């Protein structure tokens, strides 16, 4: 093992890197997610707000909540829901993703824009999830997990089923290849 260490030490070199010549993730042309995701979001949020409005409208007047059963209150709830749905629609249209050789990029958000870059070497496992409505639209969410995270580290929502499956295969292949390289190095 000592010899191996020495070998590593000999092979180890640390050339200075010019930061301006590094590949830039911000220059990657991101691909918009499926256009079907926007109506899916609209239906989800619109549906929930319609349900809430119906509950308010149909509920008998309560002592603690005198506005229950009032159609104006119900209309207000529905209007707020519709606004949220409209924002969700616009937000869904802006989402985009990109896959590079070594990382996965995902951009989301309308007012606060958030771009996440996840190095594939750090992905521990990948999972695809889809709710009933998403299935009706033929959409899938791709969730990537890394070490130590309390929650999922990256969820790419609104991928079409075939695309998601291909990406998942690619990611799993990459993770396997990286693990093999590592195992080979350790022997």
């Amino acid at each position, binding site marked *: 093992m000592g010899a191996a260490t020495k070998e590593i030490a000999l092979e180890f070199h640390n050339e200075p*890197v010019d930061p301006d010549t590094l590949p*830039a993730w911000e220059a990657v042309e991101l691909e918009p997610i499926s256009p079907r995701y926007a109506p899916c979001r609209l239906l989800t949020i619109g549906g929930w707000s319609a349900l809430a409005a119906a509950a308010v409208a149909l509920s008998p007047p309560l002592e603690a909540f005198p506005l229950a059963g009032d159609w104006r209150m119900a209309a207000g709830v529905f209007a707020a829901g519709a606004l949220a749905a409209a924002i969700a629609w616009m937000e869904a249209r802006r989402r985009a993703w990109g896959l590079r050789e070594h990382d996965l990029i995902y951009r989301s958000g309308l007012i606060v824009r958030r771009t996440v870059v996840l190095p594939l070497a750090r992905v521990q496992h990948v999972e695809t999830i889809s709710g009933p409505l998403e299935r009706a639209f033929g959409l899938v969410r791709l969730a990537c997990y890394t*070490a130590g995270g309390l929650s999922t580290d990256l969820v790419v929502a609104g991928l079409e089923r075939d695309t998601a499956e291909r990406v998942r295969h690619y990611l799993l292949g990459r993770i396997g290849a990286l693990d093999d390289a*590592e195992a080979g190095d350790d022997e």
Partner: protein
Amino acid sequence: MSDDGELDAEQWRRLSPWAVGFIFIRIVVDFVRNNVPALAGAGAGVALIERIGVREVSLFALVALLVVALVCLIHHRRFRFRLSGDTLLVRRGIIEQTELKVRAERIQHMALERPLYLRLFGLVRLSVDTPGGAAAQIELPGIPTELAQTMRARLHREDHEAPAREGEAATDDDAPLFQATPRGLILHGIASNYAYVLAAALAPFLNQIEALLRWLLADTAMADHLQALGERPLLAGILLALALLATLLGASVTVSWLRFHGFVLTRSDGRFRQRSGLVSHQEQSLARARLQSVEHVQTAVGRLLGRSYLICRQIGAVLPGQENSARHFLIPGLRRVRAERLIEVFWPGLAQGPAFDRVHRYYIRALTARWSLVLGALTAAISLVAGNPWILLALSAVPPLVWPLAWLRWRAVGYRYAGDYLLVRRGLFGRRTTVFPLVNAQRLALRESWLQRRRGVATLIVTLASGPVEVPYLPRAEAERLSNHLLYRVEVSHVAPTARRSDCAWRSPT
């Protein structure tokens, strides 16, 4: 180590019979600590007892205690553990039985605690932490000391066989890296926030304490003096504040002393170990290869006293406020130079370089706006509730009050890029600096609000396996440069494994 111990460790074993009692007491104490202040503090407890009747309540409590005791007994009967080679096996569960297997190389942190009540019976508590999160945490409360030591030696032995990391073999020895001095511990007690933690814990009892004090002081000779004080409210206030401060500081120093008395930090076989404790002895060990980031904490008081402490973070996020618990690898009472030297021990090759880079000044304005909005809304709410529109005048005082705080915050925030490492600092009056190797980054995120985009700034969030680190309001170009460099370092460490540094081996070598 005798051969007997090794043989013993291979057989299925139970916890010591005394452990039933310890588990029982701990469950009851935890329950009381978590629930009674809430009940008593609101006065609801008394009301409840009055309504239902003392006898019924005590009967109910007795039944509950019996149930808990029964559960403890069954838990103890079902709990088995053994070593198999370098693997620790634990079987537990009351209704569903689960078996946990922990390989030695997966262990990132191991603690051996010897509280006084366990020491009387020659027992210790061994806890083992893996990157798997809370579910994979194993605790063996109450096992014989020799067995625990054998097990620890066995579980550590794997590291002996692991290849020596670059250049570390030569420096590995048992010579202490750091020993806390009594003075250092006292200063640590004053500087650390144990006082606030204690104050928060006592807060629910304030009513009772006040009532008790009144009752005690009601008709004693003190009453006259108190009456005299009552006529000078300023003096009374100052005296009260001083007394409170002295009590809190005293308690805080005591806690620090109990926890860290005789603190010694050593290094051997790629593990850092610490031993400390006055009444409850404890030993902790931390695998070097699993260390994710080191945090240098200078509290506001600590900066005045010139003392700070280090927290070593591993895989798995630590909830804020739990840093002082026995489960975390904390090194107390350090002078600035000492702290810097220790950080270099944890992260070899870290150069003490130039000053930190500041973030964009626009951060001050953004913070002022954000905090002013919150305070303004609060003022408006108070004005509305009080029905007094004049309170709204206080709104004009909010921004001038908030701006200096925002400026202080901006001054505290900084980052320094030092070869293989990144240092990120934040704070207000205190300072908290996170130091981590670039290759430990798990994920990068860039957050830009609409206003930030207009100003060309962005917030960079680097997620480590130990939790996220945020650098707010970087000029956009700088944020991109930094993130591209981080990505490059992370990704190249896997593509060219021969050039990989040992400290990026967060995947265990197999």
